[in-house]
């Protein structure tokens, strides 16, 4: 049975719809990432699960119990906030004990659990300090610890790493992933950072304008983005998208250059997408005039154009290409994504069908 079930959950403010009918089942031990640009409704969805926003319509089950209209305190959840929200007037120990105290956990047992959580997070030496004496990373650990000691059915994390610097973010990301596997609880994690989503999630829920765009495992959404938005949002650097036409087994980009079309593509107007890392240098292919070369260490990113259209190409390290040069690129037809130019939905291709059957 699903640990958390969202059933056609909606949120409206007056006539404005913030979240449109989200349905999602989250299993025990599963880490779900809600991903999307700011204002897409991901935080609102999380806050509805937490009970910090009322649910306009729909049903929310946690642990099989209908909690749709319960107070946050009665939902068996714990939450980590973006700004940590540690109680500034309490010591770290008191911060972590507070939730247990409010739930009437015996003081001795509470102290034991706080010690254990602090141990796990490596913050034992901070227990008697006040939040303002801590660094951002330490506060983040404490916030995690405060959620941890409560041992809830589901952990809710609202952009927990966005206030940390890049290096620390990566480290904390790994720690959260390890921690989650270790405690084996359901977790809902909100972020706008697709790298975080890709690395952490068991499944990613991509949202935009209050609507779920696609739900899938990280590589699933990477390999088979359901629409143009997902295609552009997942992956870094982002996917190259072109207005194009399919004719005679070729994808004819507006502007003249051609790429091989995937098997089973029907003739007609399309939006063609190809990831920068799927493109490779060839002798004859799409002529790319290189405007800039970004050296990333092990990889080299070419930023250039095909006629009017911009194109990025990610190669293994190349020291010999200079800005101003023209190179020819092409891609494996199976790596080319086709979308309907009007609905922007994915057009099925032969490779999709093949993958689907192997998965089943």
């Amino acid at each position, binding site marked *: 049975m699903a640990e958390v079930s969202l059933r056609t959950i909606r949120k409206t403010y007056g006539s404005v719809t913030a979240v449109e009918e989200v349905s999602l089942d989250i299993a025990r031990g599963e880490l779900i990432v809600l991903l999307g640009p700011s204002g897409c409704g991901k935080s609102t969805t999380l806050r509805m699960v937490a009970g910090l926003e009322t649910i306009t319509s729909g049903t929310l089950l946690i642990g099989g119990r209908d909690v749709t209209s319960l107070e946050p*305190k009665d939902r068996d959840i714990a939450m980590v906030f973006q700004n940590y929200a540690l109680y500034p*007037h309490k010591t770290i120990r008191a911060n972590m004990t507070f939730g247990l105290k409010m739930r009437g956990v015996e003081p001795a047992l509470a102290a034991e659990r706080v010690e254990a959580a602090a141990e796990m997070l490596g913050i034992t030496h901070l227990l008697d300090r006040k939040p303002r004496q801590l660094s951002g990373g330490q506060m983040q650990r404490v916030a995690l610890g405060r959620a941890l000691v*409560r041992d809830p059915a589901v952990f809710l994390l609202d952009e927990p790493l966005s206030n940390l610097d890049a290096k620390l973010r990566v480290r904390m990301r790994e720690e959260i992933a390890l921690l989650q596997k270790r405690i084996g609880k359901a977790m809902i994690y909100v972020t706008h950072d697709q790298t975080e989503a890709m690395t952490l999630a068991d499944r990613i829920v991509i949202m935009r304008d209050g609507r779920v765009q696609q739900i899938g495992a990280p590589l699933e959404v990477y390999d088979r983005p359901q629409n143009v938005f997902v295609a552009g949002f997942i992956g870094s650097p982002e996917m190259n998208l072109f207005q194009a036409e399919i004719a005679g087994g070729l994808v004819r980009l507006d502007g003249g250059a051609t790429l091989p079309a995937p098997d089973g593509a029907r003739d007609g107007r399309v939006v063609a997408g190809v990831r920068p890392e799927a493109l490779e240098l060839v002798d004859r292919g799409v002529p790319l005039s290189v405007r800039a070369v970004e050296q990333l260490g092990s990889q080299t990113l070419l930023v250039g154009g095909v006629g009017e259209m911009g194109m990025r190409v990610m190669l293994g390290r190349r020291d010999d290409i200079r800005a101003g040069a023209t190179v020819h690129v092409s891609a494996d037809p199976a790596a080319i994504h086709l979308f309907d130019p009007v609905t922007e939905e994915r057009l099925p291709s032969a490779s999709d069908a093949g993958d689907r059957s192997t998965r089943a």
Partner: protein
Amino acid sequence: MTTGSTGRRSPFASAAIYLAAAAIALYSAFPIYWMISSSLRPTQEMLTAPSLVPSRLTLQYYYSLLAQTDYPQQFLNSLVVALATVAITMVLSVMIAYGVTRQRIRGKKAIVAGMLYAYMFPPLLLAIPLYTMFALVGLNDTLLSLVISHLTMTMPLGVWFLWGFFKAMPFELEEAAMVDGCTRLGAFLRVVLPLSVPGLVTVAIFAFLLSWTDYTFALVMIGSDANKTVPLGLASMIGAFDLRWGDIMAGSTLIALPLFAAFVMLSRYFVQGLTAGAVKG
């Protein structure tokens, strides 16, 4: 100010700053000193040749003030009015300020702006219509009417100040508390209020101060001797034929006493509260 710039400051500049600070302190403190010393000086000396330091001290004014006048009664009246004003101000302004910062209320900007607007009216402008209204309902010449009129000054101040204070407090703190197992009220009592102590103390002191030292409203509202507050009582000592400076100074000293005590005890919070308001305001 960084320590670097302090380090580079010339001795002359430092001296100038200390001198200015001393001058300001003297300017502020001397009248207080003079008030206290005058209340302890024999009449003879005060009227003929007041020296900086009294040669002889006497408590005669205090005796006469406390034994022969209505001063004790007036002091009690002032205390009752001020404490009632503070209590009501605290309860109401905390509720209003919290409401306008945390709830979706239609026209909440208007509520706060209206409060501030009301605060801009000079007391006298409010006092006369208020008096008419009190007379209408039979409340004229009561301490209650005085409390209500003082609220017209203290409530806008309290709401305005606490509004800034609550606004600066991240809502996530209460949300965290609610997730941790508090009700909304519980989150307010256990998290918001303890964090608001500096603001609450500041508002309480200001409310007390405004009520305790008010003369205008008391003059309009209160007619009978029995209900006079201290500022009114002191003013009535300045009679047409005699001017008992000693008694007045003793009375003034006693007025200042509770304020002084409050400041000393609460100055730590008070300064915090003022700066918090200043940053946010």
